[in-house]
């Protein structure tokens, strides 16, 4: 197959719908296509991909590829074969996908195997004299790096969610099937199903006021103080991931990428430094107030009001006040 260059987006679905994160990647691809040149192609992979292909036919997309496989759900071995064959065959300059739980399985694997350029958790990019430059935020966003891909003809970039707007407007792309023969003997991972989420727990997604706590509260015994404070405020108690991992709070209270994505009128954060995981779940809140001892904590980059102080001290004062 001849080299076509351009940008290839590898789409993801959840529950049969095109994921919001993929819509964001499509608008990023359209913007990059404008500066880098070349067509924007979106590949949808799965069992019955026609409706997914329709959903992926968005403004800025030149071509939609339908790739039929034996499972509608992600299987990393299948996707490695499919994406590897597709990229090696079509030789796009840039491959884009969300920085997702599934993409971090197939993308680094084939990048290493085929020698493609690769970087993940990308927050912005640009073309410098035809050279692609991706921007990342290591050290929890305290620093930034510009990364380049000097040696590679094809580079895979996984984009952080919540940065680019989601593409919604329908497009007029050419839709065609792309055939890949999957070697079943090399498929050693099998999707068995999903676990039902146990009912109960607070409805964080609908709460108008969330009071969340993180590592900065320092001790499990201190959770009660904040639960009482949330009651007095009429707020729902939320949490960052580390407290759930430590078993201090049930997982239904977790705000973040791997928990609830919330958008309350007020988000009051005690002792939360603001990992990428947490910020992705709460940065859309109407008003964010953060209390943390580290003046350089990333939470202060999304908060409207910040207090550099010990979470316990401020909470005790608030408890007395209310």
């Amino acid at each position, binding site marked *: 197959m001849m080299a076509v260059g351009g940008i290839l987006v590898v789409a993801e679905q959840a529950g049969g719908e095109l994921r919001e994160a993929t819509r964001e990647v499509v608008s990023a691809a359209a913007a990059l296509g404008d500066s880098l040149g070349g067509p924007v192609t979106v590949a949808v992979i799965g069992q019955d991909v026609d409706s997914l292909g329709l959903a992926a036919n968005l403004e800025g997309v030149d071509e939609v590829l339908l790739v039929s496989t034996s499972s509608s759900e992600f299987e990393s071995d299948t996707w490695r074969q499919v994406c590897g064959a597709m990229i090696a065959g079509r030789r796009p300059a840039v491959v884009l996908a969300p920085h997702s739980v599934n993409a971090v399985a197939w993308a*680094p694997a084939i990048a290493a195997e085929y020698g*493609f350029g690769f970087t993940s958790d990308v927050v912005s990019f640009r073309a410098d004299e035809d050279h692609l430059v991706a921007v990342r*935020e290591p050290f929890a966003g305290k620093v*930034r790096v510009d990364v380049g891909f000097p040696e590679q003809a094809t580079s895979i970039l996984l984009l952080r969610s919540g940065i680019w707007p989601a593409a919604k407007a329908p497009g007029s792309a050419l839709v065609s099937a792309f055939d890949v023969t999957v070697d079943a003997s090399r498929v050693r991972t099998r999707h068995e199903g999903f676990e039902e989420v146990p009912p109960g727990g607070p409805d964080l997604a609908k709460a108008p006021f969330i009071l969340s706590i993180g590592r900065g509260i320092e001790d499990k015994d201190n959770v009660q103080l904040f639960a009482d404070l949330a009651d007095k405020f009429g707020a729902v108690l939320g949490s960052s991931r580390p407290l759930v991992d430590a078993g201090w709070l049930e997982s239904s209270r977790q705000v973040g990428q791997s928990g609830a994505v919330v958008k309350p009128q007020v988000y009051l954060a005690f002792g939360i430094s603001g990992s990428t995981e947490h910020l992705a779940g709460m940065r859309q809140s109407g008003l964010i107030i953060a209390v943390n001892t580290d003046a350089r904590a990333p939470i202060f980059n999304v908060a409207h009001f910040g207090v550099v102080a010990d979470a316990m001290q401020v909470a005790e004062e608030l408890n007395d006040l209310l």
Partner: protein
Amino acid sequence: MRIVVCVKQVGVLGDEVEFSDDGRSIDPEFLDFALNEWDWYATEEALRLREARGGEVVVATVGEERADSALRRCLAMGADRAVRIWHGGLDAQDPISIAHALAQIVEEEGPDLALCGVQASDTLDAATGAALAGLLGWPVVTVVTGLTCDPTSGTVAIRRELEGGLIEVVTASTPAVLTIQTGINEPRYATLRAIKQAEQKPLAVREIDQIEQAGAVIKTMYIPERSEHAEMLGGSPPEVARLIADIVKQRVG
């Protein structure tokens, strides 16, 4: 069964930052070093598998000499032995380069499982484990929150966590690479006696055979200019408590 746990000594940034002379990394003088949190859970998971099934847990890392302390911590938790591999020409900030170095160790050790943390807290690539699987030609399952081994069939029953906390159930055949999520278990702390004993456990140091092409190259590192930053409220704890109460009251009544 034999399990190789791939761990990383991560840099923890303090209040002050200065960059190295080439402007591509943080001056190590401004970093504290620690075992990556995800790798702590991965080591614990490997120890539990060994305790249930017998076998050996080998911890591996790519890094210079100071990374030995991360390996010693895993040995103190109960790992049997450690391997550190390094080469002065390696780009330690590139996950593909790290995966090439780890593949050299894993190929030599020939384990049933290679466990990695989901990501490293400093670089946040979430890529090394899957890249390792790509180089080995092994299956990979990412963001694992539960696993059960069936040695007779050579398979692993896995729970993994998708976005929004959705749990997927997956089966994989061994050998495989699994990336372990925090919260999968409750990692043990080493006793003082175990820390002392760990000093006597074998720690082999190896040289990387060949430096392979990096996946990406850092051109520059810099402090981001923030267009938005919180309005900081000053004062004593009673004063800021009063300010917070007032702001909240204005908004939610």
